[in-house]
């Protein structure tokens, strides 16, 4: 187990370095002159040259790379050309919003996906199974930005049950962040009204974001449950008189959860991808919206910062998933 962990962490470190290299390469394939971008649209020749020196863009590439890495190690992601703000500070502000959205969406996806998958497997080939199956395929095929617009139209505009967009009401002053996750912060402060407000705002985007994830968790969990329920150890446990409820929710589900866990790790990445679309639709002030608006403005540093942060987050989540494998599977612990 110790060796397994050591290997896993070493691999993660290597990947992190690779990720830094990747963003550096992408930044340098840009056809536009970064110095010209940095100096602004009205800059003259001398100003561009000055910017080039200022940002170290006149140095050879290896030296630039070294500087890039040392800056990153100090949490320095560079400056946004458009706003002049520090990208690192922007990321610190926007990332909690995205994380909160993804966490809520994943919670919805997990609870609904696992329970529907379990029911589907228990009532295999019943009408319930057929409906969830159709639902699962749709969940992957629905364009999230379009589905988001439809939900906005239905629940916010026509029914008026939920707010259209944003994280909290326009007239509400956002509180000083503790964790940056509004739902958690409002609970920590004991502010019930704020909690309700954040919950009503996060509901629609989280549902849109969770749907593809829910669908694939459902599919995997269903087929794994069907498999597990057929297994010899379930027959034996039944023969030994284990209660049916416990048989399904512990003996079979635990086995079905191993492959489901792998999908959860993968889908977290998909979800991070979709935040780009969902945050655009719902004006959710997270890294997705930040990346999109910066990319449209040709503002390069923020996009690279988001790529790094999202990649890092995806890596960490997969690391956690791998560790959970060890918790769930005693055979791995001893390996």
């Amino acid at each position, binding site marked *: 187990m110790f060796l397994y962990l050591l290997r896993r962490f070493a691999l993660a470190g290597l990947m992190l370095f690779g990720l830094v290299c990747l963003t550096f390469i992408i930044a340098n394939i*840009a056809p536009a002159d970064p110095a010209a971008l940095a100096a602004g649209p009205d800059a003259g020749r001398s100003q561009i040259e000055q910017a080039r020196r200022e940002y170290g863009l006149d140095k050879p590439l290896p030296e630039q790379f070294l500087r890039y890495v040392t800056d990153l190690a100090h949490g320095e992601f560079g400056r946004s050309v458009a706003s002049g703000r520090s990208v690192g500070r922007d990321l610190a502000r926007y990332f909690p919003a995205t994380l909160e959205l993804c966490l809520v969406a994943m919670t919805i996806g997990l609870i609904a996906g696992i329970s529907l998958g379990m029911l589907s497997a228990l009532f295999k080939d019943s009408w319930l199974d057929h409906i969830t199956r159709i639902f699962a395929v749709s969940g992957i095929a629905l364009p999230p930005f379009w589905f988001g617009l439809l939900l906005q139209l239905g629940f916010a505009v026509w029914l008026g049950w939920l707010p259209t967009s944003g994280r909290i009401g326009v007239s509400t002053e956002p509180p000083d962040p503790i964790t940056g996750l509004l739902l958690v912060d409002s609970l920590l402060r004991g502010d019930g009204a704020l909690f309700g407000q954040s919950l009503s705002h996060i509901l629609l985007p989280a549902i849109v974001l969770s749907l593809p994830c829910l669908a694939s968790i459902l599919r995997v969990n269903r087929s794994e449950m069907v498999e597990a329920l057929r297994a010899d150890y379930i027959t034996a446990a039944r023969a030994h008189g284990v209660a049916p409820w416990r048989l399904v929710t512990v003996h079979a589900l635990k086995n079905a959860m191993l492959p489901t866990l792998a999908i959860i790790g993968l889908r977290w990445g998909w979800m991070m991808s*979709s935040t780009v679309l969902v945050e655009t639709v719902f004006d959710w002030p997270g890294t997705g919206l930040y990346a999109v608006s910066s*990319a449209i403005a*040709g503002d390069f540093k923020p996009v690279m910062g988001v*790529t790094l942060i999202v990649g890092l987050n995806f890596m960490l989540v997969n690391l956690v998933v791998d560790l959970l494998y060890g918790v769930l599977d005693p055979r791995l612990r001893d390996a």
Partner: protein
Amino acid sequence: MAASRGLRLAAWHLSRSFASMLGLVLVTAIVLLALLGPWIVPYPDDVAGSVSLINKLKPPSAAHWFGTDEVGNDILTRVIIGARLSLLVGIGITFAAAAIGVPLGILAGTAGGAVRETIMRVTDLFLSVPGLVLAIALVAALGPGIVNAMIALVLVWWPGYVRLAESKALSIREEPFIEAARVAGAPSLRILWRHVLPNSLSPIIVKMSMDIGQAILAVASLGFIGLGAKPPTPEWGAMISIARGYLPDWWWYAICPGAFIYASVLGFNLLGDGLRDILDPRSNRG
């Protein structure tokens, strides 16, 4: 008891094939629309982008089934014309990604050693950044536009094929018939061509079918956020992006393009699912 069970079993088989049939029908319909588009649309003049402001933003009616857009063009016409672009782009991205990924994957799986290690680590690297985020970073570097969006998506998509082809090649390498061919003195390139490629083809075909749908969705997504095709190109995602500005009063504008994206992605996914049942029944779903 026996009869009801028999009925249910028949219904199950029907529904399974029903899903695949639906996929086939949807895909055929999209392909037909893409091929015949200009000749079957109700308002061929609107294809080139005529302006008729008297007709702008009309609700759905007998004359305009899905209403008209902000310059008075028939929405259905523009969406049908958009099918060709979406389909070509989806197929193009998928084939290009497979053309890069599959040879690399087979090479990694058969060569082993340092070659495999290098190819697989680079692959892992690309897979470590969630797809659309990486695509946006690439488009931001290359500049917006449909061609750059395609290039970015190919760069995002190829590693998946490396993974798949490598695992297939690895498992086939262990098979006795490859051993036999090697012992018989067949040159390794010939072994690759004659044995490894055909045997890893089924899962690759299934993945490609699914990926065409996902690529159509990805291109529309980039179009929607303004990094892909630019209006007035009749691209579904870009159309929804404009339609968004006319919500909620002219809500029907967004319905038609979105429904077409949904139908095509659903079609390719169902078809892929059906193909998997036929070609590759033992593989895991997800």
